[in-house]
């Protein structure tokens, strides 16, 4: 115990003495001057309560961006915004059920596991609560009686990747799946396979362990020297793929789905080829805004078809502009 105390004292000593003159919070605060305005309601409609229930797991960067879009729209529209999530279909349905009991004024849900959600969406409809689906479930959305669906069609997004790889003259691609059994992931890779004339194979890695992701991609690149492009399905995995490429001394181009600050800087310095953005901020923002429009003006978007927020192919050219937005967590 005494030794521990000594170490504590020593560490605090160094922490007080050793400040970094570069980077860190201070640098961020300096950048923060021209940051987005904080939300003040722009309308005088009643303070309705909208709830969003997603299939996100804990600590997922992507859903964080969806949420920040939803929150900003809620601030603007004078909405009380509630959020809950569970990656278990059954629990997600129970969460929706509890919000129906709470009599919220509108619901935003994802249909990653459509069958589990079917009954509660119908129940919400019977209770007169408008439902908008986002992100996944474009096929089931209309049949279940949702107003509209806002999101990216995973197959179409995959097809865009296949096209882009084709345009870049690639021959053998690798599609890195970090969650085995995720339907959306399989659709993305299958879509890419459809439009890509070369050969595309899937590689499964353990998304909860970055060293495993790195070593698996590295092993694959060593085993198959002819691979000339690697596509990861989530932004955090692009960096691991880039490191794997370096240690395997491969010439493959690294491309990815989704954005984060690191992906954008990778695009900028040429470590990454392109990224496919489905604009999660827009998915959250539009869903809340549309619910408000429906309540206020009975407006509906899409005419019964999904409203697509992606895929948008982002390359070196766009990187400089997007840097500001990824850093504040809205792109």
């Amino acid at each position: 115990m005494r030794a521990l105390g000594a170490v504590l004292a020593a560490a605090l000593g160094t922490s007080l003495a050793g400040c970094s003159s570069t980077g860190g919070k201070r640098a961020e605060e300096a950048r923060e001057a021209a940051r987005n305005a904080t939300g003040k309601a722009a309308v005088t409609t009643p303070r309705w309560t909208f709830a969003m229930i997603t299939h996100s797991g804990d600590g997922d960067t992507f859903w964080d961006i969806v949420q920040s879009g939803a929150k900003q729209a809620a601030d603007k529209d004078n909405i009380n915004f509630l959020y809950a999530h569970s990656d278990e279909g059954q629990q997600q349905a129970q969460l929706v059920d509890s919000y129906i009991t709470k009599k919220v004024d509108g619901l935003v849900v994802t249909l990653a596991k459509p069958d589990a959600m079917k009954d509660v969406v119908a129940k919400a409809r019977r209770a007169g609560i408008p439902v908008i689906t986002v992100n996944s479930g474009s096929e089931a959305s209309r049949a279940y009686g949702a107003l509209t669906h806002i999101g990216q069609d995973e197959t179409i997004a995959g097809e865009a990747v296949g096209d882009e790889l084709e345009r870049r003259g690639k021959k053998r691609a690798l599609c890195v799946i970090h969650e085995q059994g995720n339907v959306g992931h399989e659709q993305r890779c299958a879509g890419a396979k459809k439009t890509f004339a070369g050969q595309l194979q899937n590689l499964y890695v353990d998304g909860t362990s970055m060293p495993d992701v790195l070593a698996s991609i590295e092993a694959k690149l060593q085993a198959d020297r002819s691979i000339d492009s690697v596509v990861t399905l989530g932004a955090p995995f692009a960096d691991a793929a880039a490191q794997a490429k370096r240690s395997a001394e491969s010439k493959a181009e690294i491309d990815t789905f989704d954005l984060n600050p690191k992906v954008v800087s990778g695009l900028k310095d040429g470590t990454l080829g392109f990224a496919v953005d489905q604009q999660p901020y827009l998915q959250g923002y539009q869903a809340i805004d549309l619910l408000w429009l429906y309540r206020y003006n009975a407006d509906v978007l899409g005419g019964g078809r999904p409203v697509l927020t992606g895929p948008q192919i982002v390359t070196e050219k766009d990187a400089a502009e997007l840097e500001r937005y990824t850093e504040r967590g809205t792109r």
Partner: protein
Amino acid sequence: MSATAPPATPDKAPSAADERLLRVSPLRRLMGRPELGSVVGAVAVFLFFSVVADSFLQASSFSTVLYAASTIGIMAVPVALLMIGGEFDLSAGVLVTSSALISSMFSYQMTANVWAGVGVSLLVTLTVGVFNGFMLTRTKLPSFIITLGTFLMLTGLNLGFTKLISGTVSTKSISDMEGFASAKEVFASEWTVGDVTLKVTVLWWFVLIALATWILLRTRFGNWIFAVGGGADAARAVGVPVQRTKIGLYMGVAFAAWVSGQHLLFSFDVVQSGEGVGNELTYIIAAVIGGCLITGGYGSAIGSAIGAFIFGMTSKGIVYAEWNPDWFKFFLGAMLLLATLLNAWVRKRAEATR
């Protein structure tokens, strides 16, 4: 169970004492080592993939396998020691992530030299180890429950604190801060020997194996570990400080979690708060394949290293063999089961010849 513990141990202890007086042939002595079965398993897995996967025998492939094994192995060493001491740690996987998050966020928020964050992280991580050990010995609850509680709390804290402090669920980049380059040298550098690129984690791993082996076989603390794992009450009766030993073992796990966490941070720069869940099982599996008994009192540090190596070879060998990835998890499970069975079979054989 506690009442029967003292009579159960004499059965083992005196015979071990007698054996020391006997002249035993080196081969015989080798046969009695806990890691023997896993060595045979490792050779079998190695030969298998050498045959089915063309690129498995390349030097560059070897370094990849070694890296995969080392990231598991660094944690498997103290986890094995803990298991020899008769306890589990389910919080080990998430603690790695916690440790990386703490370093990153402390340095960032304080705009401090990253070494300050690294130091604070070591303290906090060790404190979690002390907490685990202290709760365990004080409450007398099974370690399964205590560390399950810690596991859940840490998972929540990782997410909650990261969101609260950084505003997002992953940390901000600290790669442009002072001290980053030197810390990266220590925790995430790599160097090339001929065709082989070795990562520094391999070095950390080997040092930890050597240290743990020395502690187990040459020090009094090592004897205490075997004693508390064989029977805590008997050990206490002969004057072994059971509480201190167990807290020490949990601190060992915490220290390795700190090393792994710093590696995670300095090689990937940005840490996701949801990572690490499920890895604790991998560490335990590596220790078990390496010959640690789940009931405690038996095992070795080298065994855990061979277990981690089998795990690394299997998971990457499947990729080198280019098998249909849909069956990946099945292959992995089957290989691990086979390796463990072979391990148990060899050990039984070895014990029968004694």
